[in-house]
């Protein structure tokens, strides 16, 4: 991590990494989605609507994983004052918010034919909506702090406190009775999704994650370039 504290060194790695993440991510996501739309069988109860899971599950993971990234950047900012931590946090937030929104929208579209409702205020749905609003708050706070010339410490504290919502989202279906079903896939306990339906999911999971990484690197590079331009303009002006 600290080897990347030098922005020039970071950019040397980030430039090729962006291209690779973008290309491989796009290929995997397209492969997974087309397999999920054509090759897998429908579910015995839900029918064809089950296919929405190939987008819904990766979006849920990235919505939450994005805030995990913000929390990591926040710790790195508060403890080690890593020069790229605030940049990384600001780059992750819009991408995370986008995926949280996709998760909520696809879930709603799935919920209508399955449950019979677009939206219910159960523990899982509500905590995910709160995550989306937390992202919007982070974007506003971080950009306001940057405009005032702050180091990003206030946004980092907010990012750390907001991380409390992550275990709440994850365990909401275990702690409380919810309309949302319990978890189908666990790291230790295997999966209650049949393999015939499950197999394209890892493709879209990894593919969407790579695309997420590419978007974050692009935003970080753009912000570093912007900072360079601003510094040069100041020098010219002075």
């Amino acid at each position, binding site marked *: 991590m600290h080897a990347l504290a030098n922005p020039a060194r970071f950019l040397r790695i980030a430039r090729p990494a962006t291209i690779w993440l973008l290309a491989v991510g796009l290929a995997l996501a397209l492969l997974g989605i087309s397999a999920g739309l054509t090759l897998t*069988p*429908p*579910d*015995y*109860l*839900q029918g064809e609507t*089950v296919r929405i*899971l190939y987008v819904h599950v990766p979006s849920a993971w990235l919505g939450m994983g994005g805030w995990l990234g913000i929390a990591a950047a926040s*710790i790195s900012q*508060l*403890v*080690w004052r890593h020069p790229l931590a605030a940049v990384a946090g600001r780059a992750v937030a819009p991408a995370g918010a986008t995926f949280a929104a996709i998760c909520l929208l696809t879930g709603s579209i799935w919920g209508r*034919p*399955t*449950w*019979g*409702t677009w939206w*219910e*205020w*159960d*523990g899982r749905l509500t905590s995910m909506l709160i995550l989306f609003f937390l992202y919007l708050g982070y974007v506003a706070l971080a950009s306001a702090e940057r405009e005032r010339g702050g180091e990003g410490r206030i946004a980092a504290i907010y990012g*750390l*406190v907001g*991380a*409390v919502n992550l*275990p*709440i989202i994850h365990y909401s279906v*275990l*702690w*409380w*009775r*919810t*309309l949302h*079903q*319990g*978890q*189908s896939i666990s790291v230790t306990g295997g999966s*209650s*999704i*049949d393999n*015939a*339906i*499950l197999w394209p999911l890892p493709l879209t999971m990894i593919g969407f994650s790579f695309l997420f990484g590419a978007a974050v690197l692009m935003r970080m590079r753009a912000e570093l370039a912007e900072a360079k331009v601003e510094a040069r303009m100041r020098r010219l002006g002075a």
Partner: protein
Amino acid sequence: MKPKNQRLILVAAALFAVVAAALLAMWGLREQASYFFTPADIAAGKASEGKAMRLGGMVQAHSIQRQGDGLTIRFVVTDGKATTPVVYRGIVPDLFREGSGAVAEGRLQNGTFMADTILAKHDERYMPPELGNLSAEHKAGGTLER
């Protein structure tokens, strides 16, 4: 102590405190944050008559009866420990069926649940149609055991 380590300890302590506070709050909210009551809750007297609430559980096998008007249905919701009869007038979602999970919104009246809305609950198992038919008998249960 180096300021860096000092900050690390401070952040770790703050994080621990915030997470502990949140977990305690969530634990306290357990009853209120539950999306529905179960028949066992009603049997234990946790739900009051005439108050708007949600009832959740499995639709008991062979319990769905259609009334003469073609629109009203009666069925029994069970959680394995207790049962509650439900009356509903309207169209039920496609996934509403015997042996599956369902959530009803409405109120309790003389021990019968008068539902205004019926939602189907889906469990965490996904499988192709040919497997689904094989395992249809062992599917009830699971999602409500809390």
